[in-house]
């Protein structure tokens, strides 16, 4: 079910559902928290042995897993806490400065 809330700021009280019910489960996936990051986890796929430890310890459900394999990190939600980099047994994830990484991207 999708619930169109793009103009919710302009809604009158009549349009809000009774009791403040949210009609679209899991719609916080439209709210990006990636901007909170100071450090960015960068994954080196060559070192990764697919143990999936990063997946089980990620507080933001940001480890992208496809067909049972980690394929990347979802920077839309990752807040850069660094748990994945600390817990990775093969040091396949490195925390890099977010500013520098963004600059590199924008070059």
């Amino acid at each position: 079910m999708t619930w169109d809330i793009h103009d919710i700021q302009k809604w009158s009280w009549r349009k809000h559902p009774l009791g403040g019910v949210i009609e679209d489960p899991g719609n916080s996936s439209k709210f990006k928290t990636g901007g909170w990051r100071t450090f960015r986890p960068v994954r080196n796929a060559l070192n990764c042995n697919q143990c999936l430890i990063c997946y089980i310890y990620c507080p933001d459900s940001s480890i992208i897993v496809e067909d049972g394999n980690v394929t990347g990190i979802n920077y839309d939600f990752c807040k850069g806490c660094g748990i994945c980099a600390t817990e990775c047994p093969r040091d396949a994830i490195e925390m890099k400065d977010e500013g520098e990484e963004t600059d590199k991207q924008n070059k």
Partner: protein
Amino acid sequence: MPTKLRNLVQKEEMLSGGHRLCAGCGASVAVRQVLLGAPDNIQMVIGNPTGCLEVSTTIYPYTSWNTSFIHSAFENAASTMSGVEAAYQSMKAQGKIDEDYRFVVFAGDGGTYDIGFQALSGALERGHKMVYVCYNNEAYMNTGIQRSGATLRGSWTTTSPHGKESFGKKENRKDMTLIAAAHNIPYVAQASISHWKDLIRKSRKAFEADGPAFINVLSPCHRGWRYPPEKTVEVAKLAVQSCIWPLYEVENGKWKLTTKVRYKESIEEYMRMQGRFAHLFKPGNEEVLADLQQYIDREWQKLLERCGEEIEDL
């Protein structure tokens, strides 16, 4: 289904990203791991009393829960869920619902140990079939780190400050898992986010239990415990290894130690990692630290005895 990460990743994510919990929060790790233990092909109703988890996962008009969700006041999450469960049982008996529904409460230690205590006790006594998970961060973190019934003795919080006259919280914490076990419910367990396999197994048993189940999960809070956010799992691990947070379960009255501690660490290493205990290492507080070690050892011995394990020499 075996508890292997390769199988677990196939499951649908119940808590989607975009929630506003702090970076490195232990609560969402606890929620994700507990929900990975839920059976397949069921519907869930999740409830939260007031707490960090509730205020940051359900900010209108967004919700992070991919399930039905109900919010209640601080003190009555267990009663609210009891009502939902009773309504479901009635509607099922009348043939109005076919699906298999499960009921889960995620409450903080404030909503479990202190404020939600009587509602929880009532719900456990009435035997509503629900899984009550306490994500325990040992203080009222949502309102700014006030002491709770779960806070360790000697710990700094904003309402138990340290200084010339005080060494932090004066009282020992209460053993909520033991209190829940005293209700003689089918399943009670104590778990930690660092031991994910153990936690998911316990969650599975909790969902299978015929009646109420209670899981007390240690989920560190780096804001309140004062350690760098990336150490969340490490701190939880040390709490288990130093026997401050032993992992055990009580299944139909039978006590079992689920994680054996081979080399028991002293509590000092765990405490040195955290700013909330930093004042205990200053001169004058040696006695508090020794007292605390004694208290932890004593509790550990009692637990070993209950679980029928060999008792260690002190």
